[in-house]
């Protein structure tokens, strides 16, 4: 187990410079927290014609939870809802250490190292859980 496998450069970049932060007017808002550790996310989704037209988040938490949220927003923006949900499934499979489609996950693959740190998986999946809830709302 190497720390550098967990804290990849791209993760630290998203942690320090989170993308798509802020609020969206008239959006679906999902607020989730991880009660065991205090990580929080407020995810805002604008879905038009079955497509995730825009997505923003606010949150506080560890590097993994915040970087994962930032990377998720970049990955799903512009995707049809069903593809966003499929991506979420692929991400969860990666977290469980199962095989996944590298092309589908793209940059998100940087978070693969989290799967080797069982205590941190819930940090990485918080934003995706919010996405799933929002898409099904």
């Amino acid at each position, binding site marked *: 187990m190497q720390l550098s496998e967990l804290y990849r*450069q791209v993760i630290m970049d998203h942690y320090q410079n989170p993308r798509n932060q802020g609020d969206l007017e008239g959006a679906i808002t999902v607020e989730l927290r991880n009660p065991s550790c205090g990580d929080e996310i407020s995810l805002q989704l604008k879905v038009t014609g079955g497509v995730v037209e825009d997505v923003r988040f606010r949150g506080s938490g*560890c590097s993994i939870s915040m970087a994962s949220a930032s990377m998720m927003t970049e990955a799903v923006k512009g995707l049809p809802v069903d593809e966003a949900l499929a991506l979420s499934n692929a991400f969860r499979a990666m977290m469980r250490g199962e095989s996944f489609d590298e092309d589908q996950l793209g940059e998100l693959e940087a978070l693969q190292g989290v799967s080797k740190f069982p205590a941190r998986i819930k*940090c990485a999946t918080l934003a995706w859980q919010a996405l799933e809830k929002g898409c099904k709302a």
Partner: protein
Amino acid sequence: MNASAIREDFPILNQTVNGHPLVYLDSAATSQKPKPVIDVLKRYYETDNSNVHRGVHTLGSRATEAYELAREKVAQFIHAPDAAQVVFTRGTTESINMVAYGYARPRLQPGDEIVLTAAEHHSNLIPWQQVAKATGATLRYIPLQPDGTITLEDAAATINAKTKLVAIAHISNVLGTIHPVAELAKLAHAVGAVIVVDGAQSVPHMPTDVQALDCDFLAFSGHKMCGPTGVGVLYGKRRWLDEMEPTYFGGEMIDVVELYDATWKDTPWKFEGGTPIIAGAIGLGAAVDYLTAIGMDAIRAHDQELTDYALERLRSVPDLTIYGPVEAQQRGGLVTFNLGDIHPHDVSTVLDAEGVAIRAGHHCAQPLMRFLNVPATARASFYLYNTRSDIDALVHALHSAKEFFQHATV
């Protein structure tokens, strides 16, 4: 006290984690178990296992005798006047809930007040919120000073004629603050209120004398004091325990059962419905023997010495914020901190890579996190098997964390 020799009693400590010797600094969450406790559990299951207080066979008698002997040991350990005042429960949470359901709910009324602090563990907060909702009573908080301590002046101003119950931790699980329980008991009793003490962090770490504290109830857990998980204790003054109704019902706790009614056994058995936590209680008895042989005064002195050393060493780590009282004698054996703006989870992961186990999160004390204005904190906690070299390893790992995240910065 020779912590290096004591370490030999704890088989679990003799291992490497992520290629480093394990440095276990999370005893406030749960303590490790010494060989004598593990052996007693093994022996019980290999030779005496049987149900208690029923049947007349030899094993049943042995199990009953061992279970009741454990009660006596615990009673002596906390200086309870009578072993019957020791109720075995699942842990601190269940003990406090038993008081909330069995004592508070039937007695409290609208206008009555429950006094506590914002530093309480959720287990000594939520049961009282629920009592307040069910009875119409009001919660009142003794204000916290910036270092998380309370003053007796504030306590005296908060406890008044409407106060029916004061609930407070003897030692805060986050800040380590030692609260003046005996003085608070006097204030509570002066207005006819009872005091419920959460002893989860104090009973394992310092001598406890329920008669000197004059507390009405004391709740604590076995697993934080070298005993097994799943067993805890509710101590209560005889009068209250006798007056209280059981909070759950079934076999084992009954006297006479008719078709439409039943009567209960005496205190404490009426509170122990169902097959009790037999092995757990016997294991706790063994833990009490173990701690008593070492001496609770010695354990308290050891904790304090390590805390002193940790506070001094941690102050040398740049950007490290320590929460709680400054002086080691004002606090239990733990230090809660944050390292710059690195999230405690990230700190904990880097420490774990060096074999150092600490707690990161809100420590079941969300209101206190809000008071400290932080989402979470990291906590290192000490016990009789920890040494100065454990703290050196912690400090080294914290420097590594600092360095790692500096280099990870883009």
